[in-house]
């Protein structure tokens, strides 16, 4: 296996999964977003999104809070500093890999 391909082994697999990558990308573009917005933007079912968010929360990448906006109940998700760092590192790794493989 070439060094270029071996580099893929170091990728953060938690973020590399397509649905989670989309969730993290959306969250990185905002200060926070609620469950409904994430569900619509990522095109996931309620259960699927919940499962992915739980994994990201367990890893400390995402913080989930139940709050109210006026009388509206919201489940707000936010990328933590650890999550932001992991996402930035993932993007850099992927960019390097793509630059090398052309």
């Amino acid at each position, binding site marked *: 296996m070439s060094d270029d391909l071996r580099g893929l082994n170091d990728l953060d697999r938690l973020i590399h999964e397509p649905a989670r990558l989309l969730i993290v990308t959306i969250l990185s573009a905002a200060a926070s977003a609620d*469950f*409904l917005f994430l569900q619509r*933007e990522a095109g996931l079912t*309620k259960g699927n999104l919940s499962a992915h968010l739980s994994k990201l929360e367990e890893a400390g990448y995402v913080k989930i809070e139940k709050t109210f906006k006026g009388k*509206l*109940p919201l489940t707000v998700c936010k990328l933590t500093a650890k999550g932001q760092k992991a996402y930035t590192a993932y993007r850099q790794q992927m*960019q390097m890999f793509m630059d090398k493989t052309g």
Partner: protein
Amino acid sequence: MKDETSQVEQRVKRYWYSDGIGELMGGGMFFLLAVYFSLQQYLGDRSLVGGMLQAGFILFLIGGVFVGRRVINIVKTRITYPRTGYVEYRTNNKNANLMRLLSFGVAMTVAMVSVFVVRRFDSIDAMVAVTGVLVAVIFTVKQGLTSGVGRFYFLSATSLVLGGLLSMSGFARGYNLGLFYGLMGIALAISGGLTLRRYLQENPMPTEAVNE
């Protein structure tokens, strides 16, 4: 990958404009400015109320932006967030500040160049022409380029055309500005109203709550 990431990021930014509520509120603000300038022209600088109006302009603007922002949030909480979700935007990241600084710089440069050019023609009301250019630059740089929403370029062009036409109308300056803001208010209200109508048609209120 960079392109796809940028697309997702821009989609999140565009979401703020998806319901047209911001434009409706902007239209309301422009109507108030129209009334403000027309009243000031009608009352004159020497009357007590006219003087007070002139002195209170900055307060009027700051208060308007503050109240407008609050009202937008209240309306979005009732209309947008239950339908398509809630997003909180970063307010103090470096890019946003740089973009604000850039917008301000571009707007000031365009304004100074416009004043210089327009002053060469006596029959032109420089104030309304420059206002048209400034508003157009703000719509293009701050709204259009950062969000990628096409209708802001149309509003930008409307502002340029209105500013240009009204600068040659021969009306008193206050009425000219009043007309400019009034007509721009209508343009914003139409743009925001049509966007809101489409948004409501495409996004009916969900029957079950998702955020629980």
